[in-house]
Structure formats: structure tokens, C-alpha cells
């Protein structure tokens, strides 16, 4: 790649082979992480092992496919994932655009929105929304009081209820990912168009939107796949309304026998994996021409802020509405719940019963302190490991280096691993190996790294696509080594994506349940497990109190991270 060697033979060799070395390392690491659980899933789904050896066995798969509810499940799954990603994208994407590219007021609300809602455990967030929308919730109660009818205004236990809540749940992710991408928008193209007489709207439609297209596509893919795998909403909202999706099928297949039939879970997981692989292939075809999306060249990349004029207050209104829907309503419900002595609907009578006793319990409990320590430790390590790995991988993928396709595939496969299936796979791997990390926090970190690798990667790929290779090429022409280029140019430019991805992985791993519930030992319990305990014990009010405090703490932490990126000049101007 470069003829200008370093001072010593070794460093010139290193420099000449830098990409091969990095590629090799990344391939090996992703192989070690992803392939063992993948093999366990495939083996569990379609292989029988007995005294005679191995044999292919398709009866589990064919049994599942032949069930009368299989086709409806697939249809519901796809409809649910489509609907939810559209809602998440509309809510989060539009807000991201307003925040990153316009002079709309109240931008800070959107950051608070995304960070607080990502820090709240799903089960809490979903049940808060259910309390708002269900039969005895304020919306239907008010409707009945107003119209005098006994009918419901909205039946939340339905496909549309699922889509609404899941969409709200993921809109903060859409916001975080897209605002990073919008921030990279190159002002030059837009200014050129404006100077040539194009209208603001024209610029938006013909330049800004197409340039953001790969990021939007990457995001749709991510959210779509995440919705394919979503479990909380389908189980809490869908099942009572008899709407089945693939993940609730996994759960039912696993749990309809004792001991649980993890192999049937593996078989459904295999179907999910196939869906994910098809989606990834479509995505690759759609984003073949990556080079044409690079907006970050050697020049200044501060995005141009669009003056909304009279639309400014409208935009502000939108951001406030978003804040109201995604944060205020569910959090108000949680506040109500956390102050109630028991799980009670909102009512005047309930006002007299309110109490602070649940907050006192939590503040006086030593157990929570230890759990918070564990949770922070394992989320920090997982997020850091994943982002370092993802940064290097995305570099190779976006620059189309040899082996990139393999890395992309390996690192994206975990999108198709349902949590419990992955956890059991990782458990089996480490029980079979003579490495004593089973039961420690390290096995949880290992599983988290696998589970969140695809997310870290999507964040970085979206960011990397905007960095034009000409900056790196210029440095190499001037005699820099590949490692220097990465360390001093590419990675610093990628910092906003890295921090956004880190924050996301940190937050989702603090609230993840299905992995720690299988893998944690006595000394490696997490806060999500304590929340699960409270939930299982009917202590929803104490759970709400803990969830609120936890949401606030992670929200503040994430906010400071965001301020740091802002100070470096790479972040988003709020």
C-alpha cells in the first residue's frame, strides 16, 4: 500500500500488512465469539446425537412449520416488525433531523427522552404504557366517562397496540442513530445546491435525504430485526390478545415441557436466523454503492443548520409532543405506581393512599448497591469491548477490505439469536471448556459481547460510511502508517458514533434479563434480576420506584457522556 517504510524492518512490515493483521484478528475473534453458539443452535435444531453418532433430524423444524399457527405467526411477526420500525423511524428520525439540522427549540428534551427511555427496563416501560392504555387506564376510563358507553376506545391487546408500544420503545434508538448520521451531513453539497437556486425543500429531498439513505436503511434493518426478536411487548401485549409471533412461539415451545425443551427453541431460532440472513443480504444489495454516500471529506464537516423560520415553533411543539409521549406519560404512570401502596389504577381515591415507603426501602437496601456495582461493571466492559471491535470491523467493512464480507456476516449473525437461546448456548460452551468463568460476571460479559456486536457494528458502519477514504489516503501518501491513520484520523472522526453506540450498548445491557437469568452466579447478580424479582413478587410499586431511580441515574450518566462529545467539538449541538 505504501512504499515509504518505517525506521525498522518490523514496523515497515507491520505497516505494510496492517490491514491483513487487523482483518485476521477480527475474523478470529468474531469466529470465536459467534460460531460456538451458532453451532449449538444448529445442532440443537436439526442434529440428533446418539450412540451411533450424528444424524440429521428435521422433525423439530417440520413439526414447527406444520403447526396451524405457524403461518399466522410469521405474518404477525412481519407486520409487527414493519409497523414498529415505521413508527420508531417516524418519531425518532424526524426528531433527529430537527435536532441535528435545524434551529428548533427544546432540543435538549429529545436527548433526555432517548437516554431515559433506553435506561428503563423494558418490562417496566411496557407495563407503564399498558397501564395508560388498558381497560382501566386513564384513556379508556375517560372515554367511557365522556361517552357513557361501555366500549373501549382502544383495545391495547392487539397487533396495533403491540406496534404502537414497540414503536415508542425503539424511537429513542432511531433518534440516537440517525442524529449521528445527520450530523455528518456535508454542508458543501447543500450549499452548492442552494447557491444554484434550489429551494430548501428541494435540497432536503434531493440531497439531504438521499445522503442519509444508507444510515436510514441500516437503522430500519436494525430496528426491524430487533422487533423480530422482541419478546416483552409480544408477550405482555400480544399474548393476552392472542396475537402470536415467532419469539413468543420460541418461549412457548421451550416452556411447554419440564425440563424446558431448548431444542425446539433452537429450531425456531434457526427460522429467525434465516429471516435475519435474508434481510442482511437485501441490505447489502441496497447499499452496494457505499462510496457515493461519503460526506466527510478532508474539509470541515459541521452541518449547516436550517433556519425553520415560522416553522420553528411547530418543530418545538413536535419535540415537546415526542417528549410527552415517550417520557412524560409512561414516567408519570411509573411515578403514580411507585407512590401507590399496591398496583392501583389512577383515581382520586388513590391519591390519599400515596406513600414514599417504596423509595425508602430501596435507599435502605444494601443489596441494591452491590447489584448496581456489578451491573455498571459488566455493562461498561461489554460496551467498551464491543465498540473497539466494531470500530475496527466497520473500517474493514466500509473500506471493502478482503474478508470484510465474512466479518460483516459473522458479526451480524447474533441478531438472530434469541436471548435465552444464546444464553443456554454460551452456558454449554463454557461448561464444556476447562475455563472457570461459568457463574462469574465474565460469562455474562461474553454473552453480552456476542448479543450486542451487531448493534455496535451498525452504529460504526453508519458513521464510517460518511468518512471519505480520501482523508486516510492523504495521510498514507504523506507517509503515515495504517495504524497511525486509524488511531489519529479514522477513530477520532468516528468518536460520535462510538459514543452513541457505547451508550446504547451500556444501557441495553444494564436492563437485559434473559442472559443474566441463565448465566449469573451468586456473586454476579444484576439490577435487572432484582427488578425481575420484584416483578415476580407482585411488588410492582417498589419496582416502579427502583426503575425510576435507575432510569434517572443512567439518564444522567448518558447525558454527561453526551456533553463530553459535545465539548470535543464532535458532538451534536443541543
Amino acid at each position, binding site marked *: 500500500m505504501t512504499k515509504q517504510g518505517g525506521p525498522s524492518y518490523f514496523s515497515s512490515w507491520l505497516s505494510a500488512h496492517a490491514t491483513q493483521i487487523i482483518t485476521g484478528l477480527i475474523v478470529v475473534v468474531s469466529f470465536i465469539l459467534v460460531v460456538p453458539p451458532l453451532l449449538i443452535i444448529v445442532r440443537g435444531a436439526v442434529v440428533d446425537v446418539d450412540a451411533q453418532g450424528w444424524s440429521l433430524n428435521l422433525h423439530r423444524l417440520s413439526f414447527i412449520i406444520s403447526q396451524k399457527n405457524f403461518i399466522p405467526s410469521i405474518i404477525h411477526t412481519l407486520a409487527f416488525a414493519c409497523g414498529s420500525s415505521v413508527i420508531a423511524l417516524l418519531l425518532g428520525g424526524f426528531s433527529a433531523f430537527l435536532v441535528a439540522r435545524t434551529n428548533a427549540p427544546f432540543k435538549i428534551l429529545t436527548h433526555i427522552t432517548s437516554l431515559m427511555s433506553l435506561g428503563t427496563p423494558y418490562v417496566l416501560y411496557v407495563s407503564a404504557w399498558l397501564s395508560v392504555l388498558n381497560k382501566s387506564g386513564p384513556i379508556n376510563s375517560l372515554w367511557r366517562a365522556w361517552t357513557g358507553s361501555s366500549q373501549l376506545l382502544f383495545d391495547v391487546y392487539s397487533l396495533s397496540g403491540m406496534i404502537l408500544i414497540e414503536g415508542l420503545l425503539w424511537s429513542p434508538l432511531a433518534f440516537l442513530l440517525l442524529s449521528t448520521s445527520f450530523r455528518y451531513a456535508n454542508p458543501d453539497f447543500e450549499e452548492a445546491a442552494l447557491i444554484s437556486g434550489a429551494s430548501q425543500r428541494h435540497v432536503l429531498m434531493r440531497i439531504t435525504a438521499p445522503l442519509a439513505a444508507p444510515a436510514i436503511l441500516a437503522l430500519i434493518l436494525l430496528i426491524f430485526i430487533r422487533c423480530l426478536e422482541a419478546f416483552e411487548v409480544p408477550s405482555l401485549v400480544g399474548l393476552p390478545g392472542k396475537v402470536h409471533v415467532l419469539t413468543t412461539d420460541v418461549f412457548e415451545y421451550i416452556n411447554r415441557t*419440564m425440563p424446558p425443551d431448548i431444542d425446539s427453541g433452537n429450531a425456531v431460532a434457526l427460522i429467525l436466523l434465516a429471516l435475519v440472513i435474508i434481510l442482511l443480504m437485501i441490505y447489502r444489495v441496497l447499499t452496494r454503492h457505499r462510496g457515493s454516500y461519503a460526506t466527510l471529506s478532508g474539509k470541515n464537516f459541521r452541518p449547516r443548520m436550517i433556519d425553520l423560520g415560522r416553522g420553528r415553533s411547530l418543530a418545538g411543539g413536535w419535540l415537546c409532543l415526542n417528549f410527552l409521549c415517550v417520557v412524560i406519560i409512561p414516567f408519570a404512570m411509573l411515578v403514580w405506581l411507585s407512590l401507590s401502596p399496591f398496583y392501583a389504577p389512577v383515581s382520586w381515591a388513590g391519591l390519599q393512599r400515596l406513600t414514599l415507603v417504596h423509595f425508602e426501602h430501596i435507599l435502605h437496601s444494601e443489596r441494591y448497591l452491590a447489584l448496581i456495582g456489578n451491573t455498571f461493571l459488566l455493562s461498561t466492559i461489554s460496551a467498551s469491548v464491543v465498540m473497539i471491535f466494531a470500530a475496527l470491523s466497520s473500517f474493514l467493512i466500509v473500506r471493502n477490505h478482503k474478508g470484510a464480507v465474512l466479518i460483516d456476516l459473522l458479526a451480524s449473525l447474533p441478531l438472530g439469536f434469541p436471548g435465552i437461546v444464546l444464553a443456554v448456548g454460551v452456558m454449554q460452551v463454557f461448561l464444556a471448556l476447562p475455563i472457570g468463568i461459568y457463574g462469574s460476571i465474565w460469562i455474562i460479559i461474553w454473552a453480552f459481547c456476542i448479543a450486542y456486536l451487531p448493534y455496535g457494528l451498525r452504529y460504526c458502519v453508519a458513521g464510517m460510511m460518511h468518512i471519505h477514504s480520501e482523508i486516510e489516503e492523504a495521510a498514507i501518501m504523506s507517509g503515515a502508517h495504517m495504524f497511525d491513520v486509524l488511531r489519529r484520523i479514522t477513530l477520532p472522526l468516528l468518536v460520535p458514533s462510538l459514543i452513541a453506540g457505547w451508550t446504547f450498548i451500556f444501557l441495553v445491557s444494564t436492563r437485559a434479563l434473559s442472559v443474566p437469568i441463565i448465566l449469573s452466579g451468586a456473586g454476579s447478580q444484576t439490577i435487572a434480576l432484582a427488578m425481575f424479582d420484584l416483578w415476580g413478587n407482585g411488588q410492582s410499586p417498589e419496582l416502579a420506584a427502583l426503575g425510576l431511580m435507575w432510569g434517572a441515574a443512567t439518564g444522567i450518566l448518558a447525558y454527561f457522556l453526551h456533553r463530553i462529545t459535545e465539548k470535543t467539538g464532535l458532538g451534536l449541538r443541543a
Partner: protein
Amino acid sequence: MQYVNNTRKALIFAAYLAMSVLPLRAQAVDQSLIDAAQKEGRVVWYTTQIIDQLARPLAEAFTRTYGIKVDYVRADSNEVALRLLNEGKAGRVQADVFDGTAAVAALKRDHLVMQWLPPHTKDLPADFYDPEGYWVATNLYVLTLGYNTDAVPANKVPHHFEDLLDPQWKGKMVWNTSHSSSAAPGFIGVVLASMGEEKGRAYLKALSAQNIASLSVAARQVLDQVIAGEYSIALNIFNNHALISAAKGAPSQWQALDNTMATFSVISATAQAPHPHAAKLFIDFAISHEGQAIYRDADYIPIDPAIAPRHPELRPNGVDFKATYFTPERLDANMPKWYALYREYFE
């Protein structure tokens, strides 16, 4: 360090005190077992019990008494079974003791359970331990109907299975769908046990027309939904939960129908327990008078006849209300059929 030493001294002193104050239990346990257990120093307990309510108080009391540390890991019975199965298959068992209502029956088949019963067992009614010697019960669960007292007036409360067929309850009843006794399959089981196969099926068919809502959450949350007013009646919930919530002022109450299901939370040691003596000592402690008092204080129904529950009315006495007892083996043997019936009639 000084603090640690003092704590240890205090613990040893407390253990000494406890043992001298309770000579009965000190005699009941073999001293050589205590010595061997103390040498092991630690016991790992996979539990389905709620930590704050029972797991921690029991663990702490055990540590106070014997100076042996208890490491507990909490999960639902399915996850506990998954862990034990995989650890067992890999030959790297971490757990010494586990509990649950049905999993032991399946784990027994895979030779993962230790065949051992503590000396205390002989004081218990015969139903309360495994005749093959793999488990002993620690507490009783009684599954009844739970209802919202604001939504169901006292004179309308159902007392018989037939009452649930009343059109006024259509769309107002709820249960959970898990593969468990505290769910729809358990209710179906008790219906079949009470009415027999033919009548039972006819009843279930009629009941399916009542459009019972199916949730995929634990029995405790099913009751919470009823308390919140989403539904009026919860089928097959733990009767002590209704009482605990009522004590906090919630509009909840329980009612036994013609027959109720009683299940046991049972405790066992694993066959390959890394600390087998500590495991035995811990199990013995759980069913001792002291251990049983902790179950009582957590508002559970102890199995020890000498330790009355805080609310004796929760325990079926055959007069006020009747119950059919389901051992882990009976649950395990019948669950597939009950679940299939659930799917046939209610899905």
C-alpha cells in the same frame, strides 16, 4: 479486618447461643454432619423463592446458626431446571441445593438429584416427602380464585365451579398460560380431579365460551391485573397473595371453589453437589422449626404441623375448604395432558 474478626466472633457466639437455646434441633442433627458441613464452609442454593421475602432471611438464619455461607441464585423453575440439566450433563454441577414445585420429578429421571431425606422428615405427614427419598416439602401453596372486591359484590362471589359459567363473568376472568400448576393447566387439573374425565371435559368446554383472558405472566401479576380492575376474577392464584395485598388496602380477596389445588415447594440436594454435607444440613434446617418459622414469617404456609401459618384460614382443613394435594411427580405426570387440554379448549 478487626471488624471482620468481630463479626465472625459475633456469628460464632450467635450460633452457639442458638444451638444452646434450641437443644431439640441440636440433637436432631448428627454432629458429624455439622462438622463435615462446616468443613465445606459453603452451600450453593438455586432457588425459585423471592430473595427479599424468603431466600435471604433463610440463608442468613442458616449462616447465623452454623457459620456456613449460603450463595443463592434466584430464577424461575424453568431456568433452574435448565441450569441443573446443563451443569449435570457437563459434569460440572455448581448447585448443592435447589427448590421448586415440579422440576425435581424430571431431574430425578436424569439422575441429577441426591437420594437423601433429613432426620426431621419422620415428624412430617407422609404426603410431605418423597417416598423414594429425593425431596421434602418446605411449604404449601394453595391455588384458589382471587377477585376484586370492588368488582365482585359479596353476594355474587362464585363458590362452585358451575358459578364460573354465569354469563355475568364472560370476558371478566383471567388466568396465565404458563406450563405450570399456578396457571390454566393447574386449574384444568383440579377440575379433572374433582369431576372426573368426562364431566370435567364437558365443563371445560362450557368454560371456554366464557372467553377467559390469557396472560403470559406469573400468577402474582395475574392477581395484580385483577386488583387494578382490568379483570374481575383471577383463576388459580396463590391464596396468600390475595391476603397480602388485602392487608395493604388493595381490593383483593380469595375464595375456594368446590375443590382447590394444593402443591408443595420442595427442596432437594443435587446428586453431584460440590458441598454435599452443607447441602444436607441446609435442607434439614429449612424444615426444622426455626426454618419453618421463617417461611411462616414470610406469609407462606409452613408444612411443619407445629408451626401454624400467620393466617390459618389459608390452609385447607377439609371443613372450610377442601384441597387435592399434587406432588411434584403427580404434576409432572399430568402436566402434558392438562396443557394439551388447555390448547384444545382455550387457544
